[in-house]
Structure formats: structure tokens, C-alpha cells
């Protein structure tokens, strides 16, 4: 059965707290903590971007798979912060990972869903027999405009998933996608920061797509919420995934492990994939896992996964998500953060 043969995640070491951002703008940090359930978020260093995050996550995925990178026949990166508007991120990543040149590479974009989109396509190509191994990556150095609510969540990180047919760590039992023209959040060519439709991003966008995709995959797979040990939903903030999970019939203990947003922030295309990586870091054989992403515009991809006997030993080969979230961190002032995120623009 086609499944995940290797996975890896990467979260930069820099952090900024909700308090520090709130202080800058005269906002109430308690309201952010209470309302959006956000404490701090990761921030990319000056030398970190979607490409470096993808390389780090991809390297861990290859480590866990233990395969020759030359056997990877396709690599896709989903991101809304590809460093170049024209010039692929994926070409740099394959060179760094020792993949190719006999490889199919593409950069994907679908707001926050591009990561699971890359995973979906990689999985499909392996399942069809077209390629032996394929990697799908979701990574972002997310943009949030100064003094926008997004600034409290937009963070950096990502996860990579290598799909194959042999020595599978996690079986992919079912997939489902739900997509419609719902323009809740967008960034035009040349604009620094995304714009969004405020509360329109909630009910008609996030909640409709996440719950529709999840309900459909539950029906297709014949599982009910209580069958799952873990579930992760896209995390634009702390509140939405817990709310939609509750509405769908999932309990907090099923969601806690993947709910990494309160200290990681929203890594956009990397959000639910990184949450999934945190789950794979602890899942036991035969655990059923649900992941549903969400990308504005809008769509959701759902996967029903099941851990195999091989997962526990293989995961030891690379760092866990929690080790990066809870390990060494460097806290930035808003001024440093503004510099790192290139929010200070010299106007010659």
C-alpha cells in the first residue's frame, strides 16, 4: 500500500511573543491569548526562507526513509512565500538533497493548502506507479502586515513527506478534496502582505471547507471521529481548529498533539503538515490519524492515515517537532522582528 515512507519538519529558532507584538501596537495581549489562543510564533532568520526550510525538512524525511535520494522521481513544494516569483524553489531543494536531475519538480501555490496539495500529488504519482518515490513539502515564511491580526499568527516552518510503496511508516487509507471559489484571502503580484475579508474568512471559508472535506472523507472511509487517535486541522489561529474539530465531533485529546499553533504560529502551507509531523512523532502502530488542511480561495484536502509498525523506530532518525518548538529558542524584540521580516524598507 502506498504511504508515507519518511517525514521531517523544520521550525526556525527565533520567536516573538504575542505580548511583544501587542505592546508595539497598543493592543491587549490577553485578548490575543484568550481570543486567538496564540502565545508566540516562530520567525525566520535572515538566512532562512521557504527553500532552506524545505531542505531541512526534506533531509529529515530522507533520513527517516533511509533511501537513495536518486530514487525520488518527483518533488513538489507548496508555499505562498516562494522566494522568487519566477524561478522555482524546488530546483534548489533537489540539488541540496541530492535528488535528480531525473526528477519532476514544481512549485505549488494554494494559500495555506499548498503543502497538502503537494502531498496529494506526490502520493498520487507513487500510487499510480509513475514514480517510485515522490516528496511533497509544505513550507512558508508567512506574511502578515504590520498591525494586522495576521501578524500575531504568521510564522515560519514546514514539513516534508516522502511517499513510496515499500517500508511504509504511515498508510494512506483515503483522500478527499473540497474546493470552491471563495475569495476570503489573497495577495496580488507585487504586494508584500496578503489581504483578507475579515470575518468572511471564518464561516463561509475555513469552517465550510474544513468541515465539508472532513465529513466527506469520514463517509468515504467509513470511519467516525471516535475511531481516530489523532486529528489535525489547519491552524490559522488557535481557536478555529479546536472549534471546527469540536463541531465535527472530535475531542480535545485527539487534537492536542497536532495543535502546535499556540507556540509555533501559523506556518501557512506548513501548518497542518507540521501538526501531522508532531503526531507522527508520537503515534503508535495502528493509530488512525486524520489531517484536513485549508487554503484560502478556498479548499481543503483531507487524508485518513494509519501508523505502521515501522514508524516508532524510524522516527528516531530525525528531530521531532516538539524538540524544535520547546528546544533552544531566541526571543526577538519587535524591532529585531521587523528587521528579520524585512518590514523596514529603505526608501532611497
Amino acid at each position, binding site marked *: 500500500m502506498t504511504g508515507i515512507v519518511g517525514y521531517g519538519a523544520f521550525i526556525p529558532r527565533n520567536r516573538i511573543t504575542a505580548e511583544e507584538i501587542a505592546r508595539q501596537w497598543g493592543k*491587549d495581549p490577553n*485578548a490575543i491569548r484568550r*481570543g486567538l489562543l496564540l502565545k508566540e510564533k516562530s520567525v525566520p532568520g535572515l538566512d532562512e526562507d521557504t527553500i532552506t526550510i524545505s531542505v531541512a525538512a526534506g533531509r529529515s524525511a530522507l533520513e527517516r526513509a533511509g533511501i537513495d535520494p536518486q530514487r525520488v522521481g518527483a518533488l513538489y513544494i507548496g508555499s505562498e512565500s516562494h522566494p522568487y516569483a519566477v524561478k522555482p524553489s524546488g530546483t534548489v531543494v533537489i540539488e541540496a538533497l541530492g535528488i535528480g536531475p531525473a526528477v519532476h519538480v514544481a512549485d505549488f501555490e494554494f494559500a495555506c493548502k499548498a503543502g497538502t496539495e503537494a502531498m496529494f500529488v506526490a502520493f498520487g504519482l507513487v500510487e499510480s506507479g509513475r514514480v517510485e518515490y515522490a516528496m511533497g513539502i509544505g513550507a512558508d515564511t508567512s506574511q502578515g502586515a504590520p498591525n494586522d491580526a495576521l501578524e500575531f499568527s504568521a510564522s515560519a516552518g514546514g514539513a516534508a513527506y516522502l511517499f513510496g510503496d515499500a517500508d511504509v511508516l504511515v498508510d494512506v487509507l483515503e483522500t478527499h478534496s473540497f474546493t470552491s471559489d471563495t475569495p476570503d484571502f489573497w495577495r496580488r503580484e507585487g504586494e508584500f502582505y496578503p489581504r483578507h*475579508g*475579515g*470575518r*468572511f474568512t471564518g*464561516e*463561509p471559508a475555513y469552517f465550510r471547507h474544513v468541515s465539508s472535506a472532513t465529513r466527506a472523507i469520514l463517509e468515504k472511509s467509513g470511519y467516525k471521529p471516535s475511531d481516530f487517535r489523532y486529528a489535525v486541522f489547519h491552524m490559522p489561529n488557535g481557536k478555529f481548529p479546536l472549534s471546527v474539530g469540536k463541531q465535527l465531533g472530535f475531542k480535545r485529546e485527539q487534537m492536542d498533539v497536532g495543535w502546535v499553533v499556540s507556540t509555533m504560529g501559523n506556518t501557512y502551507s506548513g501548518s497542518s503538515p507540521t501538526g501531522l509531523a508532531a503526531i507522527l512523532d508520537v503515534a503508535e502502530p495502528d493509530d488512525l490519524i486524520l489531517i484536513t488542511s485549508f487554503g484560502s480561495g478556498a479548499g481543503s484536502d483531507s487524508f485518513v492515515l494509519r501508523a505502521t509498525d515501522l514508524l516508532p523506530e524510524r522516527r528516531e532518525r530525525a528531530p521531532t517537532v516538539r524538540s524544535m518548538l520547546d528546544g533552544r529558542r531566541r526571543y526577538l524584540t519587535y524591532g529585531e522582528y521587523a528587521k528579520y521580516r524585512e518590514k523596514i524598507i529603505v526608501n532611497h
Partner: protein
Amino acid sequence: MRDVAIVATGMTPFGELWHSSLRDLFVEAAREVLDAVDHPLLDSIYVGNMSGGQFVGQEHLGPLMADHLGVAGVPATRVESACASGGAALRAGFFEVASGASDLVLVAGVEKMNDGADVTGVLATAADQEAEVYHGITFPGLYAMIARAHMEKHGTTEGDLATISVKNHRHGALNPKAQFRQEVSLEQVMTSSMVSEPLRLLHCSPVSDGAAAVLLCPLDRAREFTDKPVKIRGGGFATAPMALADRVDPSALDAVSLAAARAYRASGLGPSDIHVAEVHDCFAIAELCVLEALCFAQPGSAAELTRAGETTLGGRLPVNTSGGLKAKGHPVGATGVAQVIEIVEQLRGEAGARQVANAVIGLTQNMGGSGASSVVHIFERV
């Protein structure tokens, strides 16, 4: 002038109605009215709307709405007085019927606010651009200053403001068409996010979509359409200085006092005759000021009246049984007409769990801007 009655009502739920456009909202409410009376030929339509132009880029609402209701040809125009547009539309319809010029007049209010517009900025166009808005203030700030003035003069507290929100949410929880159908505690209100000191989030009415419509006809024809007509006993309309700074006492809403005096005179009734009232609580402080301007309470004593439960369902004079603007929602142009519908339901005995026992006389008070315009109507079960 002829006596005028309301013979049918229609209203959308209020809330974030993402799937309904401005015209959809109007048609839904207006069609409910016409369905109730078997689609008679209308003589005229008034559409209360504050800012279709800025919220969704649509002006010229008279013909648009008549057309989409399927009655193109009928005279139809928009009436605007900021958040008092609905009340002002009712007044226009009332005079058209009372004068004998028309028999069947549809009065509607509609607003589509959740469609991407900068709502606070659009609403601020109802304040004085030169004296107020250019300096950066918007309505939460203006009402915060009214609240500060009221606190300064009368010793009103943040707790008094919170009591208003708690009461209106308690009522709104009983209203199937309300945007917020849940109660809130005093503590939740007092610890909600600060919007503009001393006004917190739960002191402020929400951004809403919705429409409401009523059918007016001469009282002597009312029984053709309904067994339970509600008579418009009288109305009053008044203006006050647009800018807060130009008012003698910023804690007093003079346009409301004046409109109320005119409505009491026109109806031959006084504040003590009112059994139930819907007032314009766009911010919690507004309800206190309005209760005083309507002479339901002496200046500075509306808070006491509220604390004593007199304005809660079951009290002596229930106010905002619909949930008010706070809990029912505030699609600005629709609000004035929605207030009328709540009173009509109360007087007809059709308000369900919100019913005020033996309500015969009811009042509505609708207000534009920071109180620069206000419309008051008094209704009677006949």
C-alpha cells in the same frame, strides 16, 4: 389626515448573511410581507438604507428593489438618515398614506454591511466630516465621549453600561432572528476587549446584514388584510447639531427629546402610557441616554431603572425585548423598521417567549449618527 395601520411585516434573520446580497435581503423581507396579504398592488415603496453606495457600491435602490420584487413601475425611492433611515422611511410612508395620496405603501429597511467594506469608515460618514472625522474619530469614539460626559455629570459607571448589554443579550437569546442568541454575564461584558474607553466590545452593536419590511394602509381598510392591525398613533422627527462639540450637553440627546415630545403630542400619549419600547442601543450608553430623553427616567436615573430590572422582560417597561441593536444585530438601514416589527409583534401578542403581557401601546426610537437625527413612533393595538 387619515389614521394609518401596519397590516403585515417581514424580516430576514439578522447576522453575517454571506449568501445574501443587498437585493436578496430586501426581496426576502418584502416578499414575506406580500405573501401575508396575498400580493395586492402597491401604490408606493420606501427603502430605508444608509449607505448601499459605500457598503456594496449600489445606489438608486428604489427602482432596483421594485424591479427585483417583481413590481417595476411602482413609485419607489430610498430614504436616508444614517442609522435612522428605517425610521425615516416609515415616516415618509406614514405621511403618504395619512395624506390620502396612497393606500398601500411598503416601507422597508435594508443594509448589507458584511461585504468587504471598511465598515467603521463607512459609518463614520454619518458624523461631521469637517468637525469630527477629519480629526480621526469614528463612532465608538464619539459614543465613548458621550459615555464619559454621562459618567462625569451623573456618576454613571462601567457596570451600568454592562447591565444594558446583559439585559439586551438576555432578550436576544429569546429572539429566533437575533444575530446573537446567547446570554452574556456582567463579567464577560466588563472583561471584553476595550474598543474605545470606557466602551468595550460587548457594549457595542455588531456589524450586520438584514432587511425588514412593513405594509402600511389606511386604518379603515386594515381589516381587508389582517385581523390584528396595529395603528400608528403618532410620530416625531427631530435633528440636533451634527457635531458632538456643538451640543450644549453631550450627555443629553436633544434630537431624541424633541422627537419624543413631538410623538407624544401627535399621539396624545405620554411616557407613562408606554407598555413596551424598542430603542436605539447602538452602544450601551445610548440606551441610557435615550431612556432619559424619552422621559422614561429622569436625567441620570436610567441606570437605576435598568439595575432595578424595570426595563427587563417582566419589568414595568420592557425595553428592547428583541435584543436591541446589541443582540438582535444592527444592519443600520434596516434597524428602524425592525424595531417597528418587534413592537407590532408585541402588540399583536405574537412575540412568543419575549411577549410582554397586555401590551397595547408601544414605542420605537431610531437614531442617526451620534444622535443628530432621531425618529420616534408610537403604536397602538386596535
